């Protein structure tokens, strides 16, 4: 696995984004309690956790949807305040939400440049189309035609367009919320390739995912949240599937390991029976 580059150079570099002691309450619910989080350039960090662990809240704080109640956010070493989605974007954090938010009736170029069209009076379609092709080729994206309406694309291609769109403003960090949740096997692989391409380009990638296979195959580091608290910051090559699950559920003896053990013992007994 080609993951050592991003993770190895980590001590030498300064994090792009650094969260310290972030807390957030919604009424009587403490969604996040003193959470720390760092991301370095050229690094893919997966944020995992059970339902209600605080992943979405963390994403929304970074995207400028929610403000933290306590804690500091540093971007490039200076303290910042992410008060709105546009401030988040201005800092260089591009968020790709789960529902993608594409206009089905518009073609790929129009969607990529939506709200950021190149225009001097009239729009410069040729320039936008050319830049769209360059961008998609950089990502080795498989889009047959950028003049196709987005409705005609497959799920993976739509995800690709959404990710490519987030790169138009040349962000430092790309935040992907469950990018593979609705995708098939081949399309998932495409998106994972795309994430690796983002890392090669030097972007910091934050990946929210429930899928441990995806996390293990693409992430350099996995940050585990449990009940709104940090519950582990693990380097992927040094950590096993079971260890991540243990951190997520908070116990080595949990429903997942029991199932695995049960499955193992049944196969053993059936092997013994056949022997």
């Amino acid at each position, binding site marked *: 696995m080609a993951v050592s580059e991003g993770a190895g150079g980590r001590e030498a570099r300064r994090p792009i984004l650094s969260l310290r002691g972030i807390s957030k309450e919604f009424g009587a619910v403490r969604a996040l309690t003193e959470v720390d989080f760092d991301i370095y350039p050229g690094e893919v960090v997966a944020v995992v956790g059970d339902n209600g662990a605080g992943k979405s809240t963390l994403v929304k704080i970074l995207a400028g949807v929610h403000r933290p109640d306590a804690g500091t956010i540093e971007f490039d070493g200076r303290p910042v305040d992410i008060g709105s989605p546009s401030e988040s974007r201005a800092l260089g954090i591009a968020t790709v939400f789960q529902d993608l*938010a594409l206009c089905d*009736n518009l073609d790929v170029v129009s969607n990529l440049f*939506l*709200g*950021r069209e190149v225009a001097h009076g009239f*729009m410069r379609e040729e320039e936008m*189309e*050319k830049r769209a092709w360059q961008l998609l080729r950089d990502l080795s994206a498989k889009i047959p035609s*950028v003049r196709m309406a987005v409705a005609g694309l497959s799920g993976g291609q739509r995800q690709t367009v959404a990710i490519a769109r987030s790169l138009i403003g040349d962000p430092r960090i790309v935040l992907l919320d469950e990018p593979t949740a609705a995708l098939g096997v081949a399309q998932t692989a495409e998106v994972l390739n795309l994430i690796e391409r983002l890392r090669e380009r030097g972007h910091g990638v934050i990946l929210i995912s429930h899928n441990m296979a995806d996390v293990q195959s693409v992430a350099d580091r996995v940050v585990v949240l449990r009940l709104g608290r940090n519950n582990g910051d693990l380097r992927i090559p040094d950590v096993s599937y079971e260890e991540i699950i243990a951190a997520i559920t908070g116990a080595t003896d949990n429903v997942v390991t029991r199932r695995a053990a049960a499955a193992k013992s049944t196969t053993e007994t059936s092997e013994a029976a056949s022997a």
Partner: protein
Amino acid sequence: MTSKTVAPRTGDDVQDERLIRGVGVRGAIDGFARRVRGGDLGALPVMIGLVLIWAVFQALNPNFLSANNLVNLTLQCAAVGTIALGVVVVLLVGQIDLSVGSVSGLAAAVLGVTFAQSGWPLPLAIVAALAVGPLIGLFYSFLFNRFGVPSFVITLGGLLGILGLQLAVLGANTSINIPYGSWLVTFAQSTFLPPWLAYCLAAVASLGVFASAWTRSRRRRAHGLSTRPLTLDVVKAAALFVAMALAIAYLATDRGVGVMFVLFVLLVVVMDLLLRRTRWGRSVYAVGGSVEAARRAGIRVARVYLSAFVICSTLAALGGILAAGRLASAAATSGAGDTNLNAIAAAVIGGTSLFGGRGSAWSALLGILVIQSISSGLTLMNLNSSVRFIVTGAVLLLAVVIDSLSRRSRESHGTG
């Protein structure tokens, strides 16, 4: 130029082997056929419909396609067509304005009262009447953006309320005559382009179409993108010129091309450019396609709605002024009756989707031609308005069915 198999893949945009792409003029025709099968019908159904309607009425009454009748037809189109153009914009953002008829009536009433009764100078009276439009549009968009009331309900209220205003402005008069000598009436009724000027305009328009296609090709080549064959652009522009020249020659055997109709077509052309080529136009389509996506892309959605409502009401007011000029009167019945529904029906029949985000400025022109053709044909046959309403209603239903079907076909072909 003839073979489809050895397509030289020159541009950046045609590298993908999955792309079906023919070469030359033949390739362009094939591409068009594929788009139609995929449900991207564009103006095709309404064009076919128009030809059918004309053929049927000509068979029933040989006067239908006479130059005299066609000149009348163009003049009848201009006023309601202008209103329909505004409706197109509102439909594109996925909303509707049911009050355009009342707005046009109110504008006519303001014009009649200020100009014919109070003796204001005509330009001032026109400005006053025109100002009715943006005011109403601002009011609608305030209600819509601030309180989130559906535009359907807002403009239904507007339909009644503005009709009331119209009657109040007219006061005791049920009808005010606008003097025949005024230039507004002359402009709307009896000003026609001299044939040489009409030919010149047609030539300028065709050259404009060609020049725009040519510069586009040049820029695409400069950016390393694929280009359409030059022959296709030449053929298109030449065909456009021949068609326009024939129409002008035929209409010139009667009175010629009415200036009011030219004004309407100019408005359509300008609106088409604004919608297709400006950032504002792109945001209109985006909002009609997905408001949430547009908002997240940083488009100021409320402003887009505001612009659509204001443009719609303003064009409705302009349509009312043109209608008043053509009828030389402003009355309680101005903009009443079927004006409203004809304008909305024209936009939909012309191919603008009721579901938002799809359509073009040209649908106002094509749609109003269909509606006025039906109206004119039935009038020539001495059939009364009962039949006219039924037939127009049936055509509208047909258009909506085609819209829904092509939407479904687009979904199955995945072409948005």
